[in-house]
């Protein structure tokens, strides 16, 4: 029979799980010694790598969404062939596959965008970019707490490098704060993880979830302390108020393609909170169930409020976009904290939609502003008087004034505005609707659970944040597209505008395919809320070769 053959094939296909980490890691490493003069080679390598990753993550998402076949549902990859909880395992489930897809999609867009000109702003852009993706993908895939730390560090280290890409006073100043805060947060991460290990003797998330149910009260307390401290580390990344003041400055200082991928960076914090709070402190966690949810709700709401205020107060578009990141984060945090299943599904949809939007917006901003003032270029061009002869990284004015550029840019801007404000008919609206309908529910005849004050506050904030985005985008859009006196058409490359269009197109696609997408999200949320499947798959996965 072909059983043998098919099992061999499926064994090989099993390795697909690790490829989202390995491909960018190795491609990034291979690029290191290539001379900067051959930047385009690196660009092409990076493009191929991200393209492959994109296709791969699509395949993985497909597979994990199916109920049978290879990699169906939750699949486990035991690194070094050591079983969980002892070895490190990668876990592919709907959620991680979704995040992989999102990351690679954004990365592809940013990668293409960067080749037009931004990768010339400094050295080793493409290596750092690939390694950032490796870090992100690793963080999404790993099922081990300490390994998560390692991937966080990869991601952060690469993000430091990419934020500083292009150098210049603004970026360096923002980078200093960003690095300092995140280094402190990393210390918290380590303290949290090790404390959890000290109290439970395990590092595996699934194992931790199991152990927490049977642990002694004293040790449980220590786990909670550890989780609390760990949570702070994640919330710094996720951008919760008051831990997020570094974010607007850092994100708005970054070069556009970098800022575009940074949009997904905060989502890593969100992802981990979502994963851990539902896995470890889910319904099965006994006394600790629902640990920290109240704080998450309160903090999330404060973050929305702060983000919305920041959006209103922002004069520069990049800052507006950065504050939108906070709004998005806050919305997600509070939704996770409120924790109804259908709300989490909606939140997942929102996560994807808002990330795509903000990413597109970051890419768009520079194109729009390019024609208006040289502000962006001032940042990029360093004071070459002090540089060395071997430096040629002056970002040259390039790109062509394509007819209709302004119209396309304007249209893209409109779409961004609609998406950010959550106005119909695009996915920003659909996402908010999904969250709200999860909150309100369609109970009908049977009595619905009463809505709490928190629920109402959340609704209010959600609406107000949309309103603030509308007002701010309106203001900035009118100023940029309608009121500008000198109508110099920005010179842009097609490969710069195409990624924006594609990302926004993805949002439109999401709106059109809202039904199937929401089904995927609902299934994801359901599996998150019932983590027994996850823990069982992780802890009972067989080793290769038995034993």
């Amino acid at each position: 029979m072909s059983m043998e053959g098919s099992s061999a094939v499926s064994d090989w296909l099993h390795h697909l799980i690790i490829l989202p980490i390995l491909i960018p890691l190795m491609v990034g490493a291979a690029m290191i010694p290539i001379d900067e003069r051959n930047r385009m080679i690196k660009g092409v390598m990076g493009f191929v790598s991200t393209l492959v990753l994109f296709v791969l993550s699509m395949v993985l998402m497909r597979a994990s969404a199916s109920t049978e076949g290879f990699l169906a549902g939750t699949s486990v990859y035991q690194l070094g062939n050591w079983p969980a909880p002892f070895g490190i395992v990668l876990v592919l489930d709907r959620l991680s596959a979704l995040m992989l897809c999102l990351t690679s999609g954004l990365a592809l867009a940013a990668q293409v965008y960067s080749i037009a000109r931004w990768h010339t702003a400094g050295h080793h852009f493409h290596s750092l970019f690939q390694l950032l993706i490796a870090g992100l993908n690793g963080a999404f895939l790993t099922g081990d707490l300490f390994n998560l730390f390692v991937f966080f560090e990869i991601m952060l280290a690469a993000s430091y490098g990419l934020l500083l890409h292009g150098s210049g006073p603004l970026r360096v100043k923002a980078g200093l704060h960003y690095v300092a805060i995140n280094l402190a947060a990393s210390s918290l991460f380590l303290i949290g993880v090790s404390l959890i290990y000290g109290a439970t003797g395990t590092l595996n998330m699934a194992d931790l979830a199991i152990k927490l149910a049977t642990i002694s009260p004293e040790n449980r307390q220590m786990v909670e302390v550890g989780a609390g401290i760990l949570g702070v580390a994640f919330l710094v990344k996720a951008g919760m108020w008051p831990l997020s003041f570094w974010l607007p400055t850092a994100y708005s200082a970054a070069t556009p393609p970098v800022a575009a991928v940074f949009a997904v960076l905060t989502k890593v914090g969100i992802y981990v909170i979502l994963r851990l709070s539902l896995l470890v402190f889910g319904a099965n966690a006994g006394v600790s169930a629902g640990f920290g949810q109240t704080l998450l709700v309160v903090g999330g709401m404060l973050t929305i409020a702060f983000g919305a205020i920041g959006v209103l107060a922002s004069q520069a578009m990049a800052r507006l976009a950065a504050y939108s990141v906070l709004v998005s984060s806050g919305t997600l945090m509070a939704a996770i904290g409120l924790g109804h299943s259908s709300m989490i599904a909606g939140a997942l949809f929102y996560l994807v939609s808002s990330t795509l939007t903000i990413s597109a917006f970051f890419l768009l901003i520079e194109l729009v502003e390019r024609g208006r003032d040289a502000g962006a270029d001032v940042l990029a061009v360093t004071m070459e008087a002090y540089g060395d002869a071997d430096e040629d990284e002056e970002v040259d004015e390039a790109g062509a004034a394509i007819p209709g550029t302004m119209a396309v840019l304007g249209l893209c801007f409109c779409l961004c505005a609609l998406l950010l404000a959550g106005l119909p008919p695009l996915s920003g609206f659909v996402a908010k609707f999904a969250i709200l309908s999860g909150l309100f529910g369609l109970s009908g005849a049977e009595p619905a659970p009463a809505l709490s004050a928190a629920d109402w506050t959340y609704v209010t904030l959600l609406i107000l944040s949309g309103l603030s985005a509308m007002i701010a985008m309106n203001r900035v859009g009118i100023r940029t597209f309608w009121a500008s006196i000198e109508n110099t058409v920005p010179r842009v490359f097609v490969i710069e505008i195409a990624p924006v269009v594609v990302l926004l197109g993805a949002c439109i696609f999401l709106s059109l395919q809202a039904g199937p997408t929401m089904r995927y999200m609902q299934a994801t949320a359901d599996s998150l809320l019932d983590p027994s499947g996850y823990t069982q798959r992780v802890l009972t996965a067989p080793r290769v070769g038995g034993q």
Partner: protein
Amino acid sequence: MLSVFILAPFAGSLIAIFFPSDQRGATAWFAGAIALLCFLIAAGLYPFVTSGGVLRYELAWMPELGLNFTLRMDGFAWLFTVLVTAIGVLVVLYARYYMAAEDPVPRFFALFLAFMGSMLGVVLSGNLILLAVFWELTSIVSFLLIGYWHHNAHARDGARMALTMTGMGGLCMLVGLLIMGRIVGSYDLDVVLASGDTIREHPLYLATLVLILLGALTKSAQFPFHFWLPHAMAAPTPVSAYLHSATMVKAGVFLLVRFWPVMAGTEAWFWIVGLAGLTTLLLGAYFAIFQQDLKGLLAYSTISHLGLITVLLSLGSPLAAVAAVFHIVNHATFKASLFMAAGIIDHETGTRDMRKLGGLIRYMPGTAMLAMVASAAMAGVPLLNGFISKEMFFAEAIETHQANLLDTITPYVATLAGMFAVTYSLRFIHSVFFGKTPDDLPKIPHEPPRWMRAPIEFLVLACLVVGIIPAITIGPFLHTAVVSILGTSTPQYSLSVWHGWNLPLIMSFVALLGGIGLYFLMKNYLATSTEGPPVFRLLHGQRIFERVLVTLSWKWARWLEQRLGTRRLQPQMRFLVFVAIMAGALPLLLNQFELPSLLVRGIDPAFALLWAIGIACAVGAAYQAKFHRLAALVLLGGAGLVTCITFVWLSAPDLAVTQLLVEIVTTVLILLGLRWLPKRIEDTQESELLSLRVRLRRLRDFVLALVAGGGVALIAYTVMTRPMPETIASYFLERAYTEGGGTNVVNVILVDFRGFDTLGEIAVLAIVALTVFALLLRFRPQADSLEAPEQQQVQNAFDDDHPDRAKGDSVAEYLFVPSVIMRWMFPVSGMLAAYFFLRGHDLPGGGFAAGIAMSIGFILQYMSGGTRWVEERLRIHPLRWMSIGILVAAATGIGSWLFGYPFLTSHAQYVTLPIVGKIPLASAIFFDLGVFSLVVGATVLILIALAHQSIRAPRAHARALRAAKEAK
């Protein structure tokens, strides 16, 4: 079939945008054809609708969440569809001539069609959420249409205001609709319309009502949200005629009618809707009188008429609802025609200011006639359609519905408003078409093109026909609409011009005569007065709005942003520390934490002594870091050394080895950086001059630090004194040798059990090295650290001063003997690295330690000989080392695939070689080789990149100086 109503306009919009901008006619024809198509289809559907049928079309969108693309046409929706499409056709025709050649017409018609689609969507939505979708779409497209002439500041402001108001209302309405869905259990309109009692009795009824009304009232420009509409008049006139009189503003009252069966009749409804409507009715009419802008007058009149409809709907009586629907249609006809007339006047004379206009009947008698008829309809003159619906309104106003103050004053307010309506209608006609012709008109007016007037003619004809023979013309359609709303409770009503001498008729006459009288009283005042009614004109709606918007969304937001956030690092750090302390403390405080008992026994005095030193060093470092950098660094080294000894003491030789090596490299690294920091000389006076604030701030930080330190110490102590839970460590200890092939369990964990962590860790190192390298390529030192350090200047000067010495002799002498030894240490460090590398799997050491040891050997050479000296002799290619490092490590991991095992599965085997004997050959060795290679590359790259600044910066400095000199 229904989907065509949505698809055709939107598809048309997409196509229209691609029309060449000079093809005005073609684009208009195209848009008109689409509108006409929709109209014809609607007309064709009449037989089905009039038989009481409800057409439905459903497409799944998010079926699980109850959101579907459901279209639904009943009689009322049909009436509106016809209105929207019919007036749409007429406006397109009008716009064909109205728009100037230089206007980007394709954009106009594209937006126009998009608007029509959205409006039809609102009308036809069979799903609450879909309704909200189209609702917001109308706002958005309206925004773009108002701002069509965006070079005009009024257009921009008007557009923004319209969007802000209606968009805000729409968002509120969305929430209201969501709650309604929650109450009913479905967003389907049919289900909702069948659940009136459930809704009205639900505790959330009031919230729902208020939220939905916010949507409706903002859209229909009801008081106090009315002010956006006059400013929307900056839009091209076809837009005003279509959106802001006939269709979009009707969406609000449409919604009120739509939900009338399920929401009306309660006291809350009566009060809120009635109060808003009545106020709007009166104020709108009053304001209209004092407008000088033709379109402004029409806008306020529209507001007033919408208030009239709202009042009718507030009453809760079926008959009033009939009147409301009727007036919706009537108003659309006469107001659209008036707007078009105003547009023609503007078009022909170049102004819309009534003070500048007059006597136009001589130039454009046809237009004048049409405008007069339409105005008369607006004023409620008998034999015109406006009269009939106004009579119905008066009749309903007299009726007692709720027996309260509001109910009582309705007829008086109605009459007064009717009077005002007559006044402004009369003013419109009289000041434009009669009186003396001004001689300062921008253009000489004449009749517009034939087809530009046609739409007005058609509409005025409708006014007349409906006004004279209502029962035959509008009657059946109205009935169909009304039945679809009221169903079985449809009242008996008669559409006829003459009901006999009754109170409403008397009210009409009072209004008519009073209005005429009022106009002639005020005529002279109005001819010269400024825009806006006395007193109220000071209360500029727009200015208030702008003020509020700027204050709220800009000043307060900025103030709040600054208060709630900070761009300074120190407060951010403080927050982080504080939050972390809270996060750690809360679980302890909430669950009654028991303090562990202090164990003083078993303390090794030598160990205690060590940490007394360590603590002194740490505190000293903290104390000295500000003014005595070097001292702080020395003390930091002391603390690090004690840490290393602690690792040895407590059974972690691997850690000690690694930490020691890292310690040394870190010290060199920071020293390399120290050169580029500014001088900082302690001001001895400083401590006395410190302000109280600074002292307090330091005290606060000190306390925060103490709490953090105390907390961490407490937790550490607590965990340490508790028994170890069952841990994964046992597994590693059991299998490190038998399955991992090494006796050093820590190393086996690093390269095998948790080798993936190590792979990640070296990636971090690589990334950091790249970042450092890239950043330093752009390094630009401050001017004061550009020159060579003072020591070098002094020593060079000394060399220069002495003829027997060459420049650099000092340093050569200084390092002469040391460098001999340092050079010989290079192969030794290589040996040490090899030793650590090879033994790592079994004993303390490993690839990382080896790598650092090797790179220290390199650094030593740089220190002894200087950068140039070393690089003339030894080309290290750190980037290659790094690349190869990661690739080798990863490839080792991939190698296990070939044997069918997962990534990084290690394989250990002993190989017997001649002479050498048995040697262990684990795949982990190759992995560790990668680690080694990367560590060497990264460490050397970081240090050397930093060191290179010392030769780069002066060179660049010299170059810059030279360039400056040449420039002079």
